[in-house]
C-alpha cells in the first residue's frame, strides 16, 4: 500500500501535539499524580554481593512516628507468585523483595511504608538486617565454566540459556574459505537510564475489587503480570495509560515495583507509592542493560567477501532472568546485518551472576551485536589491506535482491543500501575526509575514520521467545485503534498504552487524518485505561509507527468504507460510483451530488431509516492489527521470521585523539538513514539524534562498573556518565526512503535508530586511529583513561623496539 503516492499529512513537517503540555511543565508524570492518603515506600537494600538473610529486626523502625508497615521478602513470597519470565527456569524465581538469599548488592530486602518518603528513609535506616555473606561470582565466563559458586543453588548451574543454531553450511563454507579471522568483542554493562526513575502508585479499592495503577511503564502485558503475581483477576487491575513516561527506551518495566505496591495497598488499605530515587534505580531498579562478550569467527575470500560466520554471545544477565536472555534472540532477525553472509552458526548463552538484573534496552540486544559485526567487517578489510568502505559495499545486499532471506530465516523487506551509502559519501567525499584525517595525524594526533552499516529490525514480534523457549507459542504482537465519530461529527481515536516521548498521539492523528483527508489536529487522541483498552504490544521493538500507525490506518479505512457505504446508499448509487473527498462522499458521475460529513453523521447517529440494511448505527470502528509477516512459528531447525521491517543506517565519522590524554573527540558525524516513509520528520530526526547520543554514551562514557567486592561503583550520575550537550557533536543526517512493502504507508521503525550503529562507528573510528600504533580495542566503553594507558603502553613498546 506504499503506492498511496503523495501524502497529505504523512511526511510533512508538522508539530508534535504532545509538546505543548511539556513545554509548560504540564506533563502528567507519575510523581505528579498524588491520590488522597497516599503513603510512601523506601527500600532497605542488601549491602553484599550475595548473602543469606538470617534475621530482620523491624522493631525500632516500626516504633517510629509516621511508619505504617515494614514488609519483608518472606511475607511477600508467601502471598504472591514470582515474576513471570519467558524462560523455562522454574528454579530461578525472581521476586520484588529478596527471600532468604539476596543475590546482588542493591537487591531490595525490606520495604518500609511511611507518611512521607523522608520518613520512610529514616525508618529504613533503623531496620536491622542480619546477613551472612555468601560467595559470589561476577564474571560471566567464570559463571559459565564453573559450578563452584551457584547464584541459584536449586537451578544446578549458572546457565539460563545455552542454544546453538546452525543456519546453512557453516562447516563447508569455513572449510572452503581461504581466509579466517577471530575476534573478541566486549560490550560493557550499560543501559538507557531515563532521567525519570521508575515510579508507581497502586491503590486498592476493596469495595470495587479494583487495583488502580499509575505507573511510568513501557511493558507488554503489564496488567496480566501484575494480576497473576498478586493472584487477582486481570479485571481487577486497572492500569492508567494517561501517564506521561519520562523516558524509557526499554527499561521502564516496573513489574516488581508494582507487585510490591499492589500487595501493600491491598494489605494496608491505602494508596502506596514507590518513586525510586536514583540510588534505588541504579542499584536495584530495572536500570541495567546488556553486558555481553562476543567471540566471532568469520570465513572470507581474498576479495573480502564474507562467506560464513560463527558467533558466540555470552550475556551476563545479572542475578535473575528478567527480559535479558531474550535480548540474545532478537538479533537473530538481523544476524548478518546488511551483508550477504550465507551461513551462520550462533551460540547464545545467558548466565546469572551476582550483579543487578538486566532488563530490556533500546534495540533489545541489537546494538551490541552490531558492534561485533561491524568491528569484524573492519578487521576483515584490515587483514586484506582493503578499504573498509569498499568491503562493505562488496558484501551488502543489492537493491534488486529484495526481498532477501537471510540464513536465519528472516526476510528483509526492502532496502537500498548502496544508494544510501553513495548519498552519504557524496556529501563529504571520502578522499577529503581521509585528507582531513591525515592532516590531523600530521599534527601529531591520532585520527581515525569509522563506518557502521546497521539494520534496525522493526515492527516488533516476540518471535525470539518461541525461538528460545519452544514452550512459548506466540506468533502475534498486536496493536489496536478505535475510532468514534460523535453525534456532532468530531473524531476521537484511542491508543492503548503509555508513551515515553515517541509522539504516538501525533502518529495516530496523522494516520487517521491521512486516510480520512481531515486535518489531524481536529482528531482527539485519548488513552483509555487497561480495562477499556484493546490489545497493545506497547512501544517496544521499534513497532509503533508500523503497528499503531497501521491499526489507526486500518480503523480509519473501515470508517471511510462505512461512510462511503452509507452515502452510496443514501445517494442511491452503487458503491463503486461513490467517491470520497475530505470527509464528503460524492457521485463520481455527478460530483455535485454529494453527502457532507455532517449529513453522514446525521444519518449514522439519528436517521437509521436512511442506513443500509443490517448496518450498525453510529460511526464507531476498531481494528486489532496482526503484525505483518507474523503468524508463523520458528522451524525445528531454528529458522524464524523475526520482525517485518528493516530500517537501514550508515554512520560515517571522524575522530581525533590527543595521544597523551586519550580522549576521542568526534570531529565529524554523518549518518545516512532510511526508515522507509517518514511519518513525522521532526520525530524521526529526534529519535536518530537521541539514539546517536545514547550510542556515544555506550561507546565512550557509560558503564555500570563493579569493584571486586561486587559493589556497584557507578551508582550515581557523578559516576555513570550520561553525555551532555558538550559530548554530543553536530550530526548531519542524510535521508533516503525505501518504502516497506509490508506497511500501510511504507514506513519502517526508527525508534532505535542511531543507537544501533553509533557505538560500532565510534569503536571503528577509534581503532582506525590506533592502527598506526599497531593496537586495537574491542571493549566498550572506551574510557579516556583506559585508552590513554593503552596508547602509552603501545608507544613505549614502539620506542623500545626502535
Amino acid at each position, binding site marked *: 500500500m506504499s503506492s498511496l503516492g503523495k501524502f497529505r499529512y504523512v511526511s510533512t513537517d508538522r*508539530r*508534535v501535539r*504532545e*509538546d*505543548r*503540555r*511539556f*513545554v*509548560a*511543565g*504540564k*506533563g502528567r*508524570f507519575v*510523581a*505528579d499524580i498524588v491520590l488522597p492518603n497516599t503513603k510512601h515506600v523506601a527500600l532497605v537494600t542488601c549491602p553484599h554481593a550475595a548473602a543469606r538473610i538470617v534475621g530482620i529486626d523491624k522493631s525500632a523502625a516500626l516504633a517510629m512516628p509516621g511508619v505504617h508497615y515494614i514488609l519483608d521478602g518472606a511475607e511477600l513470597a508467601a502471598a504472591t507468585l514470582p515474576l513471570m519470565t519467558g524462560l523455562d527456569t522454574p528454579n530461578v524465581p525472581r521476586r520484588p523483595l529478596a527471600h532468604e538469599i539476596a543475590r546482588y548488592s542493591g537487591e531490595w530486602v525490606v520495604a518500609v511504608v511511611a507518611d512521607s518518603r*523522608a520518613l520512610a528513609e529514616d525508618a529504613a535506616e533503623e531496620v536491622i538486617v542480619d546477613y551472612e555473606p555468601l560467595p559470589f561470582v561476577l564474571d560471566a565466563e567464570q559463571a559459565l565454566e564453573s559450578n563452584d559458586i551457584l547464584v541459584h543453588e536449586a537451578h544446578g548451574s549458572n546457565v539460563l540459556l545455552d542454544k546453538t543454531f546452525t543456519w546453512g553450511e557453516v562447516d563447508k563454507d569455513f572449510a572452503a574459505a581461504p581466509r579466517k579471522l577471530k575476534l573478541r568483542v566486549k560490550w560493557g554493562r550499560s543501559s*538507557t*537510564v*531515563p*532521567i*525519570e*526513575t521508575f515510579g508507581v502508585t497502586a491503590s486498592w479499592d476493596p469495595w470495587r475489587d479494583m487495583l488502580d495503577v499509575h505507573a511510568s511503564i513501557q511493558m507488554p502485558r503489564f496488567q496480566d503480570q501484575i494480576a497473576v503475581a498478586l493472584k487477582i483477576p486481570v479485571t481487577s487491575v486497572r492500569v492508567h495509560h494517561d501517564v*506521561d*513516561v*519520562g*523516558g*524509557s*527506551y526499554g527499561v521502564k518495566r516496573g513489574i516488581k515495583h508494582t507487585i510490591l505496591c499492589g500487595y501493600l495497598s491491598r494489605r494496608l488499605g491505602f494508596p502506596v507509592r514507590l*518513586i525510586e*530515587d*536514583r540510588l534505588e534505580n541504579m542499584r536495584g531498579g530495572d536500570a541495567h542493560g546488556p553486558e555481553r562478550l562476543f567471540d566471532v569467527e568469520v570465513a572470507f575470500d581474498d576479495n573480502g567477501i564474507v562467506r560464513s560466520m560463527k558467533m558466540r554471545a555470552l550475556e551476563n544477565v545479572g542475578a535473575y532472568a528478567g527480559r535479558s536472555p531474550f535480548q540474545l534472540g532478537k538479533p537473530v532477525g538481523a544476524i548478518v546485518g546488511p551483508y550477504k553472509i550465507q551461513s551462520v552458526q550462533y551460540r547464545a548463552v545467558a548466565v546469572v551472576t551476582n550483579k543487578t538484573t538486566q532488563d530490556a534496552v533500546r534495540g533489545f540486544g541489537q546494538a551490541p551485536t552490531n558492534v561485533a559485526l561491524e568491528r569484524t567487517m573492519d578487521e576483515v578489510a584490515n587483514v586484506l589491506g582493503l578499504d573498509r568502505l569498499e568491503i562493505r559495499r562488496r558484501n551488502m545486499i543489492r537493491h534488486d535482491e529484495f526481498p532477501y532471506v537471510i540464513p536465519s530465516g528472516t526476510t528483509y523487506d526492502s532496502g537500498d543500501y548502496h544508494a544510501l551509502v553513495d548519498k552519504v559519501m557524496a556529501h563529504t567525499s571520502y578522499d577529503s575526509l581521509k585528507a582531513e584525517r591525515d592532516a590531523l595525524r600530521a599534527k601529531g594526533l591520532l585520527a581515525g575514520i569509522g563506518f557502521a552499516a546497521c539494520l534496525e529490525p522493526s515492527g516488533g514480534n516476540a518471535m525470539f521467545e518461541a525461538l528460545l523457549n519452544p514452550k512459548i507459542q506466540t506468533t502475534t504482537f498486536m496493536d489496536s485503534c478505535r475510532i468514534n465519530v460523535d453525534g456532532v461529527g468530531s473524531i476521537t481515536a484511542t491508543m492503548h498504552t503509555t508513551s*515515553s*516521548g*515517541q*509522539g504516538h498521539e501525533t502518529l495516530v492523528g496523522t494516520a487517521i487524518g491521512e486516510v480520512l483527508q481531515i486535518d489531524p489536529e481536529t482528531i482527539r487522541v485519548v488513552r483509555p485505561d487497561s480495562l477499556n483498552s484493546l490489545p497493545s504490544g506497547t512501544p517496544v521493538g521499534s513497532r509503533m509507527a508500523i503497528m499503531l500507525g497501521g491499526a489507526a490506518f486500518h480503523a480509519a479505512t473501515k470508517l471511510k468504507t462505512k461512510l462511503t457505504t452509507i452515502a452510496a446508499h443514501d445517494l442511491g448509487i452503487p458503491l463503486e460510483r461513490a467517491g470520497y473527498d475530505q470527509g464528503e462522499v460524492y457521485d463520481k458521475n455527478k460530483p455535485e451530488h454529494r453527502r457532507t460529513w455532517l449529513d453522514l453523521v446525521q444519518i449514522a447517529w439519528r436517521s437509521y431509516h436512511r442506513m443500509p440494511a443490517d448496518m450498525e448505527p453510529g460511526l464507531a470502528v476498531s481494528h486489532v492489527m496482526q503484525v505483518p509477516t507474523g503468524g508463523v512459528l520458528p522451524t525445528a531447525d531454528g529458522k524464524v521470521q523475526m520482525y517485518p521491517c528493516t530500517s537501514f543506517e550508515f554512520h560515517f565519522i571522524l575522530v581525533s585523539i590527543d595521544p597523551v590524554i586519550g580522549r576521542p573527540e568526534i570531529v565529524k558525524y554523518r549518518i545516512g538513514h532510511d526508515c522507509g516513509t517518514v511519518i513525522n520528520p*521532526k*520525530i524521526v*530526526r*529526534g*529519535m*536518530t*539524534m*537521541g*539514539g*546517536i*547520543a*545514547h550510542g556515544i554514551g555506550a561507546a565512550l562514557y557509560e558503564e555500570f562498573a563493579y569493584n571486586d567486592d561486587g559493589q556497584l561503583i557507578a551508582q*550515581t*550520575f*557523578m559516576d555513570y556518565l*550520561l553525555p*551532555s*550537550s*558538550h559530548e*554530543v557533536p*553536530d*550530526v548531519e543526517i542524510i535521508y533516503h526512503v525505501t518504502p516497506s512493502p509490508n506497511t500501510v504507508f511504507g514506513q519502517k521503525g526508527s525508534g532505535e535508530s*542511531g543507537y544501533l550503529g553509533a557505538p560500532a562507528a565510534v569503536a571503528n573510528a577509534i581503532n582506525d586511529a590506533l592502527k598506526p600504533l599497531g593496537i586495537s580495542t574491542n571493549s566498550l566503553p572506551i574510557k579516556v583513561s583506559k585508552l590513554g594507558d593503552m596508547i602509552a603502553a603501545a608507544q613505549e613498546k614502539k620506542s623500545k623496539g626502535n
Partner: protein
Amino acid sequence: MRIELDINGETRELEVEPRTTLLDCLRDQMQLTGAHAGCEHGVCGACTVLFDGVAVRACLIFAPQAQGSKITTIEGVTPGPGEMSVIQDAFCETHGMQCGYCTPAMVLVAHALLVDNPNPTREQIVDAISGNICRCTGYAQIIDAIALAAERLRGANRPVEQRV
C-alpha cells in the same frame, strides 16, 4: 519551621521541615510540578528553577534557604493558561524534546540565557544547556529551539527588557 517564599511573584507562607528541598517544597507543597526530580544529587538539572533570575538546581537548596529570594518556576514563565512564551513555542516548532521530562528545565535555562545574551552563538547555547541532561533528544533540536527563539525575540516588536 515557618518560612515565607516568593514564588512566581507571589508570597507564600509555608510550614516545612528544614530538610525539605526547594524542589520537594515546590512539588509537594505548592503543586508546582513542572520542576522534576531526576537525580536529587545535582547532576541532571531536571529540577532547575530560576533563583533571583539565575538557573539553579532546586534539589540542592533547602527550602528555608530560599526565603528572601525570588523563585521563578516554569509555571511562572508561562504567559497564561494554554498560552506559550516565544521560547516555549520555539521548542514546539523544532520539537526540542521527546518525553518532556527535562523540558521545563531546558526552557528555563533558555529563558535565563536569552535574558542575559539575546544573541547567543551555537556554542554558547550548547554551553548553557550543558548542565541539563536530556536522554531523549541528543540535544540538536533543543539547540535549534533556543536559536530559533533568540531569532524570533530579536525580531519582536517590544522593548528589549520585555522580550523574553
